Structures are given as C-alpha cells and as structure tokens.
C-alpha cells in the first residue's frame, strides 16, 4: 500500500520494469510479424 521501499528494492523494481517493457515490446513485434503469415481464406 503506502510502502516505502529500500534502495535495493527500488533498484530491483527498476530492472523488473525494464525487463517487462522489453518483453511486451517483443510480444507486440512477434504478433506483428506473425500477422504477415496469415492469409485471408
């Protein structure tokens, strides 16, 4: 809730959020590329 994080926890959260961002970016890119291989029936 109203948590006050230690510097180590903050650093860990910063890395985690960056990793998550790249992951989401990769998934979006993958969906985009996979889209090219779909042909209309």
């Amino acid at each position, binding site marked *: *809730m*109203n948590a006050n*994080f230690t510097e180590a926890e903050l650093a860990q959260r910063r890395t985690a959020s960056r990793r998550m961002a790249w992951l989401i970016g990769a998934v979006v890119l993958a969906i985009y590329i996979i889209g090219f291989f779909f042909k209309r029936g």
Partner: protein
Amino acid sequence: MSVATTTVPGHAGEHHGEHHPAGILRWLTTTNHKDIGTMYLTFALTMFFVGGAMILAVRAELWQPGLQLMKPEFFNQLIGIHALVMIFAALMPAATGFANWQIPLMIGAPDMALPRVNNWGFWLLPPAAILLTLPFTLALFGIGDGALATGWTFYAPLSVQGGLGVDFAIFAVHILGVSSILGSINIIVTIFNMRAPGMTMMKLPLFAWGWLITAFLLIATIPVLAGAVTMLLTDRHFGTHFFDAAGGGDPILFQHLFWFFGHPEVYILLLPVWGLMPHVLATFSRKPIYGYKAQVYGFIGIGVLSVIVWAHHFFTVGMPVPALIYFMFSTMAISLPLAVLFFCWIATMWKGAMSFETPMLFATGFIVLFGIAGLTGLVLADVAADAQYHHSYFVVAHFHYALFAGGIMGVMTGVYYWLPKWTGHMYDEKLGKWHFWLTVVSFNLTFIPQFFLGLAGMPRRIPDYALQFTEFNMISTVAAFILGLSQLLFAYNIWKCVKGGPKASDKVWEGAEGLEWQLPSPPPYHSWETQPVVK
C-alpha cells in the same frame, strides 16, 4: 510555507471550527470548493448507477432475439437517456468534482475564484437530471409517451416529430449546459488568476492544463449545442423550419450542429483524465513526468483539432468526396498528438521503480484499453471502412472503449489516487484490486463480442436481432451484469474509506509530487490560507 497542522481524522465533509449552517442547509448554501467537489462526485456516482441500471435493462432485453421485456419505444428511450445520463450527469460532474477538489490544492489557491457561481453550477444539476428522467414516471401516469426516444443525438426529423420527452430533454440539456459553462468559467478564472506565486503556466500541473483545455472547449461548443436544441424547440413549437424539410429546412444541418459540439465533447470528457494520468504514472513509477511540455502542446493540439473534424460522425449521410477526404485526414491527424501522449505515458513508466496499487492498475489498464479505442477509431475514421461499420455495434464497442475504459476508468483512477488525500483514510486495497480485475475482465467480455457483432453486421439501437448474433449477445449480457455488479464494490470501498480506515499520511504515496501532497490529509476546510511559493 503555511501548512496547517490540524489533521483531524474524519470524512471529506468534516470541518474545523468553521461557521456554517448544519445539515442540508450547509450543502445547499456551501461555497467551499471541497464541499462542492464532494457533492459533484456523489451526484456523479449516483447517476452512474442510474445510467448503469438503464443499460442493464437494455442488455437483458438483448439476451436473446425477439422482444422479451419491453416495447421497442421503451428500449429506444433507455438507450438515449442512458447516454445522456452517463455523459452529462456522471462523467462530466465527476470531472468537475475532481477539478473542484484538486485544482485549488494543486495550484496553491485557498478556494475557487467564484465560489457562489460554483454553488449554482452544482445545484443546477439535480433539477436537470430530474427533467431528463421525469418523462419515464409521467408515462406511468398516462402523461406523454415516455422519455426522449431518439437516442442521445436528438437527430431531426425524428426529434421534431417526437413526443413530450424531447422537450424535457431539450430543457435538461439547456440547464446542464449552463451548469457546465459556469463550472468552466470558474475553472479558467481560478487557473489564470489564483496560481501560487512562482507557478508559471509551464509549471502548472498537467491535470490543471487538461482541465483548462476542457473548459475552453466547453465554452466554445456547449453554446452551439444549446443553439441547436433551441432551434429544435422552435421547430417543434413555434413554427420555424430550421430542420423541417417541409418548410425548406434541412435535417442534415442538425447533424452538423450537433456534432460540432459532439466531437469536442469526447475530448471534454477525456482531457481531465489525460491530465490526471501522468501524475498517477509518475507517482507509482517513482519518476518525474516524462515530456511535460510535449503533453501540454498535445492537449492544445487535440483541443484545436477536435473542433474541425465533426463530420466523421456521419460520413454515410452523403457528402462530396473532397469533404469526405478532408474529414477523414483531419480525424486521423488527431492520432498524432494523441500518440505523443501515449508515448509520454509509456516513457514515464520506462525504467521506473513501479508498484501496482489500485490507482496504478487502473492507469495501466486505461492505457491499454484506451489504446484499443484509438485504434478502432482509426478504422472508423477511414471513409471506405466506415461505410461498412457505420451505425453498427462496432461503433458501440469503440466508443465504450473510449468513454468507459478511457473516461470512467480514468475517473476511478483519480478516485483511488486522491481518496486518501480527501478523507484522510486509506481505502481497502484488496477490495480495490478485486474491483479493478472484475471491471477490466468483464468490461472486455462485454465489448469485445460487440466488435465481432458489428463486423458481422449487427446494427446498433435495435431491441431485436437476427438469430446468428445470439451467442455473442449472451456473452455480452452476462459480462455486462458482472461489470455492473462489480461497481457495487467500488461504491462500498468509497463508503468504507469515507467512514474510516487506516490513517493516510500527508503524502499518501511514496512517489507523489506536487503541492496537494504538502497539505494534511484531509486538507483543512480552507486549503491554502497563505499561498505557497513555487520555485
């Protein structure tokens, strides 16, 4: 800086030895920005449930093909009044409530600039809401044939021919319009004249910037709506022919007038939320707001573009090709400043030390779902595609992504974010998280099927439909009821928080920045007796 040290625990309305009448008279006569803000928010929450109940009746009717529960006339009344209630009596008052509570706190002002006007602005709302819904009751006693049955858009010639409900809705819109204009003037004057010393316009909190643009849009467009419905009224009763083709008028003119107001209205509803988002994202990412100036220019850009794109709401009415192309490209151009806002929100979170309390959950949910609203909006802005999707359930799903996920979830973000500041108590975090997940899942289950229904050709505003649409409608109906019931958690959580709960600190959130967090929670009855100085 003079910060009062009294931090009496109590709910939003609690006061500190001030002289004002007690009971109902206090609320009737109050000129205090916090009291008025509380009234706006309470009114908005009440009407949110009223409008929600109406649309649940509609969803129940749409559970399966055929007419089960109501006559088509009553169905038509419900959808139109649902929209008017949600837009004018829930979302707009909620945003005005935010402005009342927060703008003086955020810019270091003791109160709003025009307190009496503020009181009037609020007390015009309940009569307007009653006018809007009264025809339902009158019809029960055999007077008239119920409420406005044209949908919220009042399209002529249907509205010229309609019954008593149209007149009630016209007067309700007039009163609501006056209320909005009073509120807007107050907010603009407050922001221009009452900022703390040292707070230049480019140091103004983004929430205040968003509201400033909204206020100007309201002043520019609400009078046009008032003019349009006034013409409608004179057409109906005083023999003019603005929209009456029999007398040489033109029904299409009404659509132009209505949407000249109607499209900016979308941004009127959303700009306060866009202003609020960066504050929440920055707080829970423990980083400063990314791209402050870009967002300010984005707001201004969207405000300007919003008044020159209206005809995309009726591409299919028959327009010359150059006009179609102009409205298509200008509409699509709005996605540029909007994309700037999206990228600023994402960049604010980038590499942040994020934590996901309820306001942050709602803020991130908002970004994703509002993104879907924007992308489907681009599809509809395409003239060629719009010929297929116009007036289908695709449109319904699209604008609910914009106005529920973008508008109402944005308001919920603000409520969870600021409620501890207003009441001095923390809300129930566990309940808040339940509320978020139930809302976001059931919201998507309600409206994703409607995209499919629209693509498959189901028209909107019909009480009955072809057999092949049944399954998706059933999913949508079940999810809509879950969505509606989940909002009871929201109301209960607010109630619980107002009544008591763990004490909130002055700053409330670890990463919070801004003047409002320097005041005690709850803030004293008069916010900044001595104005703070901004460096």
